[in-house]
């Protein structure tokens, strides 16, 4: 085993790449849950976004159009969830699961003719002078644009939630939908928009996997990333910057275990590859064990059905 082959600089740079798909999906789900809706279909929306983005990018030759298509695909799929839970008042847990199962089937159906193709390359943003700075250069200034987009999104979501009127309405709807309704806010409209935002973000996260991180299309390629995004929202206690921290932590674990695999650690590959999931569970346990403080963070109307008559 040769641990010296693992370079900390490259590790940090690649953990940012590994974390980006989960960060995108998690920040979208954060908005959805802040509006009081629990959408367990993140995995389904991610994988649909992955294939939509991949297919369109291959057909048009432009990754940017691919990412736009991925966001549209994710949002469109989430709209099914939105209509079912908001207008037909179905159980959110069951509908979210259905969305995941359907998304997995739909994506492998759409992706049949795209197996084994290489997508068009997404260029790294090689900022001239800055990216040549020894350690900081590769870490901060030598990524593709989506890494920065995800980071910007975290800041925008934080600003939007805490510094704008729309964010206040969204939180009001999530904390107490009856009161928000009584104040004249359109609960269902706010929630539908939030759900679609979540779907678009999950779609972007999926496309990041298929277009940049892997980059290839294989069936079921998200491999639980959507579920980990859901866990990270809980870990982050519904706060944007803690979600960022959680996603980067998880990215770090993933990259580290991949590096250990490559370095030929004595632990079998299978046990290393289950470590991100085990660590996610451990983190969930730690977070929920100190419920005293974090229970206040969960939106009070999370998962409850809203019907104006009640």
């Amino acid at each position: 085993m040769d641990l010296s082959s693992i370079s900390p600089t490259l590790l940090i740079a690649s953990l940012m790449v590994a974390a980006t798909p989960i960060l995108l999906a998690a920040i979208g789900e954060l908005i959805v849950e802040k509006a009081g809706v629990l959408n367990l279909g993140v995995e389904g929306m991610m994988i649909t976004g992955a294939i939509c983005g991949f297919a369109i990018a291959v057909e048009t030759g432009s990754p940017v159009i691919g990412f736009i298509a991925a966001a549209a695909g994710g949002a469109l799929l989430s709209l099914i969830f939105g209509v079912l839970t908001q207008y037909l008042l179905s159980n959110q847990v069951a509908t979210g699961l259905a969305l995941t199962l359907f998304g997995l089937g739909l994506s492998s159906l759409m992706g049949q003719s795209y197996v084994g193709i290489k997508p068009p390359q997404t260029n790294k943003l090689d900022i001239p002078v800055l990216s040549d700075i020894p350690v900081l250069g590769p870490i901060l200034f030598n990524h593709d644009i989506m890494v920065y987009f995800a980071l910007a999104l975290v800041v925008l979501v934080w600003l939007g939630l805490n510094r704008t009127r729309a964010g206040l309405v969204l939180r009001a709807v999530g904390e107490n939908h009856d009161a928000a309704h009584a104040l004249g806010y359109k609960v269902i409209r706010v929630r539908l928009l939030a759900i679609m935002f979540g779907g678009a973000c999950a779609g972007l996260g999926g496309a990041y996997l298929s277009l940049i991180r892997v980059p290839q299309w294989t069936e079921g390629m998200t491999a639980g990333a959507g579920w980990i995004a859901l866990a990270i929202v809980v870990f982050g206690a519904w706060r944007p910057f803690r979600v960022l921290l959680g996603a980067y932590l998880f990215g770090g674990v993933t990259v580290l275990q991949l590096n250990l695999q490559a370095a030929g650690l004595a632990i079998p590959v299978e046990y290393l590859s289950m470590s991100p999931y085990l660590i996610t569970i451990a983190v969930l346990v730690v977070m929920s064990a100190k419920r005293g403080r974090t229970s206040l963070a969960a939106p009070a109307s999370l998962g409850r059905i809203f019907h104006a008559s009640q």
Partner: protein
Amino acid sequence: MIALEKRPTPSRFWTGITPFLAVLATMIAGGIMFAILGKDPFAAIRTIFWDPVFGEFAFYYRSQLLVKAGPLILIAIGLSLGFRAGVWNIGAEGQYIIGAICGAAVGLAFYPTESFLIFPAMVIAGGLGGFLWAMIPGILKVKFQTNEILVSLLLVYVAEAILASMALGALKNPDGAGFPGSRNFRSYPSAYNEDLIANTGMHWGVVFAFIAVIFAYILLSRHMLGFQIKLAGQAPRAARFGGVNPDRLILFCLGVSGMLAGLAGLFEVSGPAGQVSIDFNVGYGFTAIIVAFLGRLHPIGILLAGLLMALTYIGGELAQSNLGLPAAAIQAFQGMLLFFLLAVDVLTNYRLRFGNREVA
């Protein structure tokens, strides 16, 4: 303007009729999907729903029906108890894998001893394996209030990694010339889960599934625990005032569903699948969620839903070979079924009101 008005109690008529409506709607939407894929929708629907039971080679497919429905029903019965109580075990796939590994390991440990005790020991180990795997989210939920949905699901990926390591390592066939996968149970009579009546597909797993249906029916309609399960799901606060211990209920629901999933895994691996291989699991643990909802979380309903779902599996394979319909189409088809089911559910709990909404 169409408005929804909550019914004082769920309509019994609509509870019974909605699954059929959902199946019908899925057939129409699925037909449209098949047409988009360039297949004749009527031929596809007939191949999926009619040919396996009444077609030319039905004598073969009818036995497959039980083989596929057995594990689905067994798992879905366990899940339905939890779903009723608001305990969401969606990691049945993981419990299924671990049950299969534990049971198979016990059987393989005795190879090549022949004894009538080996198979029962495997059954116990399989059930226990699934039970213990489901206890992880259970105990974490009770002790630390950890979300059981996320934990049970993340454990599926852990179980898959363990399965890979077992099929390539500890349980690999020593005489297998280096191929991955365990010894085949077909060549080990004491541990093989054979058809009880030849060529009917009726193996021990199917028998257990029927027993589970009966037990669940009695539990839910005649037993105090069944009443508590229903109460905890419908009115959690009332249940707590009524002396229901929520922690015990969580552990019971997760334990039973894990055990049944583990049993299903063992019966599958020692029978139809034949060996522990890296991909012997075909997603029954997830499809069983659809089965549980399609059966309205009711034991008899689940029995019928399991048979219907098994039909779509077999019909899907048939459509794959005869019409060239992609395998993924049937998966999307099954997901669609769950959507329609949840959508028409609104009619059970709400009344449609046409005309202008009166001012409150």
